[in-house]
């Protein structure tokens, strides 16, 4: 029970620390995603020659959970190494560190969700009941983020080169997924279409894009692929931490 209190208190401290020395403080939680999304939608609607209103709804639907995943994985990967101030002084389960970073990223995600709703209110024309599935659609993303974060945390402790590799990997996955551009722009048998089909993020993106943009329910395949993959990655991450828990100290 106290372990949960510790996780909670430390997560809150982390959030407070992040903006402690800034003048705008907590406002940055809203301002940062709003500026980022605003600039991105302007640029890409011009590049893709799309109607900005339509494109913003499409882009934001999957970009918000992607940004959450990216943030959670990057920060969780460094969490064990940067937790040395504690791991060297007291006994604490190493699981705590990636979990805290993952929770912090989750809270930030909630803030950007508010921005998303704001943008949708501005640009979305048709509102349907499909939107109710969005909170559920977040679950596979969350499990995947924690799993990848735990794997990254273990790898980064032993090989410091891995941070750049993770970032590069995330960029490749992002640009080969249908988050920035619609899959319809490619011909069915083209290489690009095939890459999209084999990129698992396509299925994760569909969980958000279908209810928000295409006004439809995610398909059964989307759920099976995403939940299955997320659980495998999560189990892998948790077992890696469990297996190497006694060795972290020697690499901090």
């Amino acid at each position, binding site marked *: 029970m106290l372990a949960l209190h*510790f996780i909670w208190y430390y997560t809150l*401290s982390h959030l407070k620390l992040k903006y402690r020395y800034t003048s705008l403080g907590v406002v940055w939680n809203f301002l940062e995603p709003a500026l980022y999304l605003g600039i991105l939608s302007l640029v890409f609607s011009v590049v893709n020659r799309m109607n900005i209103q339509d494109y913003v709804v499409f882009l934001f639907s999957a970009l918000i959970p992607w940004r959450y995943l990216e943030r959670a994985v990057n920060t969780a990967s460094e969490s064990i190494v940067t937790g040395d101030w504690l791991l060297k002084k007291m006994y604490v389960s190493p699981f705590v560190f990636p979990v805290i970073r993952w929770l912090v990223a989750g809270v930030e995600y909630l803030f950007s969700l508010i921005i998303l709703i704001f943008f949708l209110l501005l640009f979305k024309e048709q509102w349907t009941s499909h939107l109710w599935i969005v909170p559920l659609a977040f679950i596979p993303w969350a499990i995947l983020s924690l799993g990848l974060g735990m794997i990254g945390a273990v790898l980064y402790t032993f090989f410091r*080169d891995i941070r750049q590799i993770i970032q590069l990997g995330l960029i490749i996955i992002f640009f080969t997924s249908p988050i920035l551009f619609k899959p319809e722009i490619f011909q069915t048998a083209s290489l690009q279409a095939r890459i999209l089909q084999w990129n698992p993020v396509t299925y994760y993106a569909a969980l958000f894009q279908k209810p928000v943009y295409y006004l439809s329910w995610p398909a059964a395949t989307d759920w099976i692929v995403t939940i299955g993959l997320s659980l495998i990655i999560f189990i892998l991450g948790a077992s890696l931490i469990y297996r190497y828990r006694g060795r972290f100290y020697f690499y901090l």
Partner: protein
Amino acid sequence: MSMVFNLEKVSVSFERYSVKQRSLKYSVGRLLRNTNNSHFQALNDINLKIEQGENIGLIGRNGAGKSTLLRVLTRVISPQKGKIFINDQLHLVPLLELGIGFHPDLTGRENCYLAGLLMGYSRTVMEEKMEDIIRFSELAEFIDEPVKTYSSGMYARLAFAIATDVRPEVLLVDEVFSVGDEFFIRKCILRMQKLMKAGTTTVFVSHNLDFLVTHCNRLIWLDQGRVVMDGEPTEVALSYRAQQGHF
């Protein structure tokens, strides 16, 4: 009396650190050549039983393995070999290198709550103790400042105040008297004596042999990761001094 620690044939070794050993290139090369890094044996086949209420002093030269042994007892280090039993029923508080895991960017007060939670005390309990901790550490003016702005003496004072105010059942202390002024050290010793009288099991690592002989009822002398002598403090101190050429 119940058992607090039981170590059987515990060994800990560290890979010798060098910057190049952390790179992927080096690791892959090592894997291909199937060679190992050189190791430093910090603890070698340690057998140790500690009962509740014992006050133990660990002595030895630098690099003898004292601090590593203390870290094994706090579960911060998991030994590569051997069996270890730690009584989970008791509140164990470690004070390693003058600190109890303070986050440098958090304030003294926030760190106090955080450390309390880690040691098994809720925030409400820590809030009740806060006034005492502030008074003992003499940090009233600075308690809401980030810990990174503290001097090493302030840092140690806060850590010691927290660790001893929670009335631990087992207290593990590594060189606490190396910083802090004479007045504060005296205050610390008085508080330690109180805790020992109340039955707290203590394990001290210190180079202050006189303190250990006066306050401990058992002294363990370590050298190169092995127990050289374990027993009555005056006898162990005498042999240790003789061997070191101080007699």
